[in-house]
């Protein structure tokens, strides 16, 4: 029982971190960024390249991953999202193509085989029969810290409130003197940085493979849909619902079914309550 709670908390923390960048874009840009998983992919591989292949300090590796992620987010906004001018279908499809391009780019550079990422902090802690790797613990702590600061950033700072304004009504925001282009740039940058950071942790939780972007994308989609648009708290709660659900299903029913309930949850929520459990009333 303790083991389930501890593992559930760790996994949920990781999921919340993964979904956060996706929520930002989906809430503010109202854009379905199917290449979101690619930030995690690139973040993981950038960290792997600098920290493990070049032997740089791990913190530098993480930092470089975050910088590359942010740069990717900005480039994606400039080169794909902005030229398509809010055509949602076109953005969805071009980001899907981009994700495949990046995946095969990684295969081209690093090969098809999976890589084991050394933990950021080696060692494990044993608590009441549960084994907790320090890096998973770190992921959960970092995730909580980022969630809390993001919550305050979005709700308290001027830029954060401008982001909310743009998400509600871009024209109204423009009349109030908000440069929505700049806000979008900031949002895409943050989203990319968060994605890349989540990628480092996700890759050390599982392993580094060129196809590792699909699973986190689906988890983020599930969390955002069930949580509802524009709700950081909703994201946090639903990350825990899904994280615990997966751990409980794995422990009590069968490990193969862990994804099935998540999918059923997405489909059910979308059909019964399309605005999500905690989202704003709209659609």
């Amino acid at each position, binding site marked *: 029982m303790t083991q389930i709670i501890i593992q559930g908390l760790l996994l949920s923390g990781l999921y919340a971190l993964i979904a956060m960048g996706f929520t930002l874009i989906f809430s503010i840009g109202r854009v*379905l960024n199917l290449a979101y998983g690619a930030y995690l992919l690139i973040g993981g591989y950038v960290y792997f390249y600098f920290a493990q292949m070049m032997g740089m300090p791990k913190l530098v590796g993480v930092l470089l991953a975050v910088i590359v992620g942010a740069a990717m987010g900005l480039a994606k906004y400039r080169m*794909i999202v902005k030229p*398509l001018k809010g055509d949602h*279908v076109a953005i969805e499809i071009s980001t899907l*193509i981009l994700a495949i391009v990046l995946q095969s780019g990684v295969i*081209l550079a690093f090969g098809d085989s999976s890589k084991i990422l050394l933990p950021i902090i080696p060692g494990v802690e044993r608590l009441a029969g549960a084994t907790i790797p320090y890096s998973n613990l770190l992921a959960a702590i970092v995730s909580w810290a980022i969630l809390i600061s993001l919550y305050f950033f979005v709700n308290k700072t001027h830029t954060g409130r401008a982001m909310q304004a743009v998400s509600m009504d871009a024209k109204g925001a423009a009349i109030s003197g908000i440069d929505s282009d700049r806000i979008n740039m900031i949002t895409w940058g943050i989203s990319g940085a968060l994605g890349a950071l989540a990628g480092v942790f996700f890759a050390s939780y599982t392993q580094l493979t060129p196809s590792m972007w699909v699973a986190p994308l689906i988890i983020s989609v599930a969390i955002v849909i069930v949580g509802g648009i524009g709700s950081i708290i909703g994201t946090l709660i639903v990350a825990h619902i899904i994280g615990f659900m997966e751990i409980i299903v794995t422990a009590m029913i069968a490990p193969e079914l862990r994804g*099935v309930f998540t999918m059923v949850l*997405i489909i059910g929520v979308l059909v019964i309550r399309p605005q999500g459990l905690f989202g704003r009333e709209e659609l």
Partner: protein
Amino acid sequence: MGLRWYHFAMWAGFIALMYAMPELVSKGTLRTFIFANFLAVFAISWDVLSGRTGYISFGHPFLIGIGAYTTAILTKRFDVAIEISIPIAVVVTMIASTLFILPALRIRGSYFALVTLAFMELIYQLVQVIRPDLTGGTRGMSGIQTLTRGAVNGYYMSLSLMLAVAISMWLLMRTRVGTALSAIGMSEDSVLGSGLSTTRLKLFAFLTGAFVAGLGGAFYVHYLGSIAPRALFDINFVFTIIVAALIGGSSTIIGPMVGAFFLTYLLEYLRPYLPGAERYFIYGGIALLLYMYQPKGIYHIVMQAWERFKPGKSA
């Protein structure tokens, strides 16, 4: 339906050229053509369901897979004849497609795309867990009865299937129903305002798309003789289908066929330089550039060029 003599002439020329192909090209090229034919069938089916109505499906392999698995299980595990199992597979696929209807009645745009993606992941995981004795679990099934032997026969089979699908869909889309479907993609509210039932139209589009997808999936599995969940319910497969339909030209019939042939050829052409999955780097890059340049596809680019250089036009 606005049929003209040149429509018949163009179809006849196209059909004659395609049927003469085994005389013109090598066996290896012919195998590439077979895959292009199947991809064209899937792309047309995607286009009927998504390209016209604007309800983008990211879960198309869900439908194809249901068709393929149904006939594979029936023929391999229960010794049902292929002539019976393929129609059953098509009907099962059409029934399964009604699962898409429920969300499509309530949600639009990105949300619909996400539900279909969720359906695909769901079936991918269920196939491996539920009754592995029937589905073959993670490894899938092999040794499924094949319809044809050899490249030439396989080519004729796949070509006939593609042409039958293409011509019937082409005729269907020239009717008033086809026009109404395209209108849904432009403005669903206007269609509703014109006194048409969008629910019935969407149901029709989904059932037609599923019919073609199930048919294509069933024939495909009886061509390959094997089936595996990872190759089928894969986001790369979704990507290939959607890109073929869009690069060629959505909302046309010739477009998805052009796209399928163009992309299959591109992939084959790259094989000597990049043997593995790296090919998708160039393939995807070209697709992305083409799509960003003209989201309406090659068909539209050609048409624009034709308009510009049309003989006898002064300007």
